[in-house]
C-alpha cells in the first residue's frame, strides 16, 4: 500500500526469518550435503555424488513406499476434510451438546499413537477385533481383515489416522464457521436454498482459507506419516504398508545409513516444493486481484 522507510513488520518477522533461514534452510542444505556423502551412522563429509539417490531409486521398498504414500495422501486428506467438515456442522448445530461432541471428536488427537495404534491393531485384527465380534454376534459371513491383507492394509492406516485427525480439522473449520456473518446464511435461506446446498455453495467457499489451512496441515502430516505405521503394522504385512518416512527413519537409526536417509528426506522436500510452489503462486495472484 504505502512505501514505508521503516516497516515494523520487518522487526516482527525477525524470529521467523531466523527460523526459516538458520534452521530450516540450514538443515535442508546440511541434509542435502549428507545425502551426497557416504555417511553411515555418523555424518561424513566425503563426496559420492548422486550414488545414494541412485541406490534410493533402485530400492524396491522405497519405490513401494512412494506408491503407498501416493495412495494414502489423497484418501487421507479428502476423508479428513469431509469428515471434519461434517463434524463441524454437527457440533455447530448442537446448541447444547456441542461442547461434549467437540471433545468426543477431538480426543483421539490427544492420545499418543503408541497406544491407540495398538488398539486399532486389535480392532482390525480378524482374530481379535471387529470381525471376530461380528462373528460372535452371529454375522458369520462378515469379513473385515484389511489389516492382514497386503493389498488393503494401507486403507486401515487411512481409517485410523482419519479417526485421529478429523477432530482437529473440525476444530479449524469450526473456528472458520464462527466467523461467517449470519445475515448471509439468512439471505440464502430466504432464497429458498436447501440446507445442504447452503453448506456446499456458500459455507464451503467462505471457508476457503480454513480449508486451505487444514489441507496443508494434513499434507504435512501425511508426508510425515510414521507413528501410525509403527504402531499398527510396522510396515507389514511384509512391506505392504511401508511409507517414506519410515524408510527414512529406519535408515537414520536402525540401519545406520543417514546418507541414504538424507537422500530420502531431500526427495520428500523436493516433492513438497513441487506440490506447493504452484499452489502458493496461485494464491498469491488471487490475493493481489482482490486487493
Amino acid at each position, binding site marked *: 500500500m504505502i512505501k514505508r522507510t521503516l516497516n515494523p513488520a520487518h522487526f516482527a518477522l525477525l524470529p521467523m526469518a531466523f527460523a526459516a533461514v538458520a534452521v530450516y534452510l540450514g538443515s535442508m542444505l546440511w541434509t542435502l550435503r549428507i545425502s551426497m556423502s557416504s555417511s553411515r551412522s555418523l555424518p561424513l563429509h566425503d563426496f559420492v555424488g548422486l550414488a545414494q539417490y541412485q541406490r534410493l531409486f533402485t530400492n524396491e521398498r522405497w519405490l513401494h513406499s512412494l506408491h503407498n504414500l501416493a495412495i494414502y495422501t489423497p484418501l487421507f486428506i479428502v476423508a479428513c476434510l469431509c469428515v471434519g467438515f461434517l463434524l463441524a456442522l454437527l457440533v455447530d448445530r448442537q*446448541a447444547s451438546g456441542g461442547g461434549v461432541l467437540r471433545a468426543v471428536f477431538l*480426543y483421539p488427537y490427544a492420545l499418543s499413537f503408541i497406544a491407540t495404534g495398538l488398539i486399532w491393531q486389535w480392532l482390525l485384527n480378524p482374530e481379535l477385533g471387529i470381525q471376530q465380534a461380528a462373528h460372535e454376534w452371529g454375522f458369520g459371513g462378515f469379513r473385515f481383515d484389511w489389516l492382514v491383507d497386503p493389498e488393503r492394509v494401507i486403507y486401515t492406516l487411512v481409517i485410523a489416522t482419519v479417526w485421529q485427525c478429523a477432530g482437529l480439522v473440525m476444530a479449524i473449520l469450526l473456528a472458520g464457521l464462527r466467523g461467517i*456473518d449470519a445475515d448471509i446464511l439468512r439471505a440464502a435461506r430466504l432464497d429458498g436454498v436447501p440446507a445442504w446446498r447452503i453448506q456446499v455453495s456458500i459455507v464451503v467457499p467462505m471457508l476457503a482459507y480454513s480449508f486451505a489451512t487444514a489441507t496443508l496441515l494434513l499434507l504435512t502430516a501425511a508426508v510425515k506419516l510414521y507413528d501410525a505405521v509403527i504402531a499398527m503394522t510396522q510396515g507389514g504385512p511384509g512391506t505392504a504398508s511401508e511409507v517414506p518416512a519410515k524408510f527414512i527413519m529406519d535408515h537414520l537409526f536402525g540401519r545406520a545409513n543417514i546418507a541414504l536417509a538424507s537422500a530420502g528426506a531431500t526427495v520428500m522436500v523436493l516433492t513438497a516444493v513441487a506440490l506447493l510452489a504452484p499452489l502458493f503462486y496461485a494464491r498469491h495472484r488471487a490475493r493481489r486481484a482482490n486487493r
Partner: protein
Amino acid sequence: MTRRGHRDPAWWGLAALALSAAAFFLLPLYVMAITSLKPMEEIRLGHLFAWPTQLSLDAWRAAWSGACTGVACEGIRGGFWNSVSIVLPSTIIAITLGALNGYALAYWRARGAALLFGLLMIGAFIPVQVLMFPLVRMLGPLHLVGSLPGIVLVHVIFSMPIMTLIFRNHFAALPRELFLAARLDGAGFLRIFVLLMLPLSVPMLVVAAIMQATGVWNDYILGLVFAGREHLPMTVQLNNLVNTTTGTKLYNVDMAATLLTSLVPLTIYVLSGRWFVRGIAAGAVRG
C-alpha cells in the same frame, strides 16, 4: 431457530448422525478404558469388547506411581511437572510468534516475507528426526542442548510453520476494511495486533493452543534429545512403559498410562469450548 429446530425431521437426522459418529469415535476409547480395568489374565483371553469380570484400578495405580520405566519404578508421574513447564512456555511463545507472523504476512507488505514463509512451509514437510541431528549440532555449541530453554526453543521452531500458516490464513479471511480503519485511526503495528486482531482471532487462538499444547505434550523424542535428564517430559516415561521391543508388556498398565497422560490435553479441549465464540466478524462491514 432453536425452538423451530426440534420440530423438523432434519434435526433428528442430524442428531442420529451425531450419535453414530460419536459412537465410532468412542469405540477405541471404550476398548482402551476397559482394557485398563482388566487384569492381564483376562486380557490374555482376548475378548476385546467384553466388560471386565471384576474392575480393578490397580493398573491405573501402577501406571501413575508403580510401574517400572527403567531402574526407577515410579510410574509416569515423575515427568508431570517437567511436561507442564515445557508445554506452557512452548505453547505461549509459539502461538504469539505464529499470530504475529500471520498478521504481518497478511497485512503488512514486508519484502521477501512471502519467500521466507514458503521456505518455512517446505520445512514443515521434513520429519523432525531428520532435522534433529543438524539442530543438535547447531544448538550444542550454544549450550542449549539439555536445558529447558533449549527444548522450548526447539518446540517453537518446529511448530512455527503450522502456527504461522494458521494465522496467516485466518487474517487473510477477515475483511480488510477493519485493518484500514484502524490504520486511519492512527493505531500502529502492535496496537492493531493486540487490540483488534487478537480479539478477532479467539477461536483460532484456541485451535492453535489445542494443536500446540497437544503436540508438545505428546512429544518425547525431542524431549529426550534436547530437554536433558532434569527436564524429561512425562511422555518419556510413558514411552518407556508402553513401547518396548523384547520386554514384557502389561497392556492394562499401558492403556491406563496413555489415558492418564492424555488427561491434560483432554481438559484443555473441554475447557476450550466456551471460547469458540460465534460471529466474531459479524456486523463489521456491510456488503
